């Protein structure tokens, strides 16, 4: 559902800014001094449309939700809505959401890392890289409703894989307790866009792993395992952790796939919020605000971890 081009631009050399500001100075200096002040305020006006748009359609709606979650019915400040979040059914919803997000992020990171490693450092032919990256770009956007249909057609009761396993290998996965419409099934479905996302983000970090380090380590007598433990993983862990945080946030906020797969019977937080927005099923409008606020806090923290760690990891990718 989200495509990150951050990795690609991180490896591009930045155009030196001094040249541009120098030019701006030249531009400013060619005009008489009094107008220089007017030009500054004029510059501020240039981004007004964008700021107005951001204010009206991004910042104000979010603030409305945040403020609303602290308001009572009469309009006064209250922490009661946040406190109400701690009732069993809502806590259970948050817990399921967190479980699914952690599971799909962990697995996505792990499998994606293996594939990215195979592609970059695993000694595979170079022509494989472009198709894998292109496909990753497409697959990471294939979330949502079509993805749910695809997995129903594959792992559902009459799905392709289910039938193949049953007819060719005599394994009845549904008899063994597997069910697509469950925590495990949803995680499996989410992996379809989590893994490609990992590949897209980790590849630039792996690109930055110099071959000389590997060679130097083996010259000093390190085994492959030691190399990974002492040299490579410490360098890569900011990227990995950041990727994990991003995948977590991505999965936590995803509504469409879960809704299309399970209807509204799986009680994850976004679906609960969806039902609440459609028609106050929680019998308390302000609880909806609190629910949304809880979502913002969780995805916000996860995303900022990602950004902070990405900035850290970019130190190695010059």
């Amino acid at each position, binding site marked *: 559902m989200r495509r990150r*081009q*951050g990795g690609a631009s991180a490896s*591009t*050399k930045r*155009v030196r*800014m001094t*040249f*541009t500001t120098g*030019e701006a100075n*030249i*531009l400013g200096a060619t005009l008489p001094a009094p107008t220089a002040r007017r030009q500054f305020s004029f*510059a*501020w006006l*240039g*981004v007004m449309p*964008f700021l107005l*748009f951001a204010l*009206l*359609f*991004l910042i*104000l*709606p*979010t*603030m*409305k939700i945040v403020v*609303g979650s602290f308001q009572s019915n009469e309009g006064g400040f209250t922490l009661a809505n946040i406190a109400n979040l701690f009732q069993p059914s809502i806590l259970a919803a948050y817990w399921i959401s967190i479980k699914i997000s952690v599971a799909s992020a962990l697995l996505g990171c792990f499998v994606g890392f293996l*594939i990215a*490693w*195979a*592609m970059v450092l*695993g*000694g595979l032919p170079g022509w*494989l890289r472009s198709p894998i990256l292109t*496909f990753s*770009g*497409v697959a990471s*956007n294939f979330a*949502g*409703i*079509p*993805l*749910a*249909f*695809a997995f129903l*057609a*594959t*792992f559902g009761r009459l*799905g*392709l*894989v289910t039938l193949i396993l049953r007819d060719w290998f005599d394994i009845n996965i549904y008899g063994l307790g597997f069910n697509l419409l469950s925590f495990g099934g949803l995680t499996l479905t989410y992996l*379809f866009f989590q893994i490609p996302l990992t590949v897209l983000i980790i590849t630039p970090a792996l690109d930055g792993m110099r071959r000389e380090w590997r060679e130097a380590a083996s010259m000093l007598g390190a085994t492959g395992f030691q190399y990974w433990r002492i040299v490579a993983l410490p360098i890569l862990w900011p990227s990995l952790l950041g990727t994990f945080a991003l995948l977590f946030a991505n999965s936590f906020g995803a509504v*469409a796939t879960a809704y*299309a797969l399970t*209807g509204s019977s799986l009680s994850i937080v976004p679906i609960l*919020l*969806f039902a609440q*927005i459609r028609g106050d099923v929680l019998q308390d409008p302000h609880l909806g605000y609190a629910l949304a606020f809880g*979502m913002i806090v969780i*995805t*916000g923290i996860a995303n900022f971890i990602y950004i902070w760690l990405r900035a850290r990891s970019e130190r190695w990718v010059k």
Partner: protein
Amino acid sequence: MRANRIWSWLFVALGILYFAFPLVGTLEFSLKMRRGAYSLDAYAVVLGDPRFQQTFGYSVLMALATIVVGVLLVVPTAYWVRLKLPRWRPFMEFITLLPLVIPPIVIVFGYIRLYNTSSWLPLTGSAMGTNILLMFGYVVLALPYMYRAVDTGLRAIDIATLTEAAQSLGAGWVTILARVILPNVAVAVLSGAFLTFAIVIGEFVMAALLSRPAFGPYMQLLGANRAYEPAALAVIAFAITWACMALIQVVSRFAPKPPEQQH
């Protein structure tokens, strides 16, 4: 190293299996509408359904409007910030990252609470108003990618010199933007445009909660009530996404390379 290579091939092969099966499975399921034989019946039903045509047309129109408004909003802003307000860059980056931090369901919840008929800007009071609101919602969703693409494109050209040259020839700001800057970032803009298209076509949450007849809610409705048509829809949706990404790849070949790029 040879052991490494075996592992590599193994991982890639397993990956290919995991990704290929759903795609093949969907395709196979979508061909099974007629009992006992493969046929394109599901596709015929879907493509002939007037609701498909209406909702798909609506989403395509929305996508085009989103792209136009997005370009009009982002290109001048990114240009201006690069040129005149370089110290604002971190702030702008922060704003363009916000749509990725705040889940779309929360954003549309804010819209419904803020712009209903009893507010100062009653956008949800009419069909046209709600359409406009939805479009701005889509612009917000596409903002991170559009801004990043345009910014990367601007980085590759020397806007300061171009601007100075154009100004010395007597061009006003609109002319500079339209006839000097925009053609040079056309490739970046197109990349952003295709990505926006893919996002808008498949979007569900905003359209569903604002009750607009878009393609996403239609897909979900069909998915609940029909057996084989949803698989056909999924194949169509995937084909569209793939086409958009492929177009981005094709178009990126023509991107001007930044002057000091190391490989």
